[in-house]
């Protein structure tokens, strides 16, 4: 019963890894709140989008066993 969390850009630098496997959380918001404390992420959740299994998702999307979660900091391509 776990999920994979992907880190990009400043979140990856802060986490010190590309991804990690974690127990299934109660919600996406609860997961990010925990991770923010643990990794010292500077960005509040309000500045992020979230993606589940490779597609943008609402913050209240269900989190199920085996899913892949990515927190998307403000983008800066172009």
């Amino acid at each position, binding site marked *: 019963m776990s999920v994979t969390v992907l880190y990009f*850009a400043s979140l990856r630098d802060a986490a010190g890894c590309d991804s990690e496997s974690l127990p299934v959380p109660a919600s996406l918001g609860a997961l990010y709140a925990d991770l923010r404390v643990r990794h010292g992420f500077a960005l509040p959740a309000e500045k992020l989008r979230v993606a589940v299994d490779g*597609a943008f998702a609402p913050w209240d999307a269900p989190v199920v066993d085996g899913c892949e979660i*990515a927190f998307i*900091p403000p*983008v*800066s*391509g172009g």
Partner: protein
Amino acid sequence: MKRFAIATEPFDIAPLRERLLADAAGACASFEGWVRDHNDGRAVQGLFYESYRALAESEGERILEEAMQRFEITSAACVHRTGELAIGDLAVWVGVSAGHRGPAFDACRWIIDEVKSRVPIWKRERYATGATDWLHPEP
């Protein structure tokens, strides 16, 4: 064939432009983003672009499909680099062909604006001081 692509190595524009040609197209607008030697008053020595590739490709494709619906255009394509880039390197290319120039320009500009605001690609600047910084602009 996909309209949007991530390129992990330098890419040529000529074959991309070729794909836009059509007998009914009288106009082609294109945009190139180049690595500039400064940003927000700081001297920049180079960039690193990272993407969440699967989502970048699907979101990029969605933008180009939306452009085909929104504007009276014939064809549209975009390629975005990732990896280490030096000053003057091509970071992103957008090309649009259309019957007339108005929609070609409008769509080209709309696409680059949407790519910059929606596609999960991040830029880390390397400054003359040696410092580096991820850019996470306010939307």
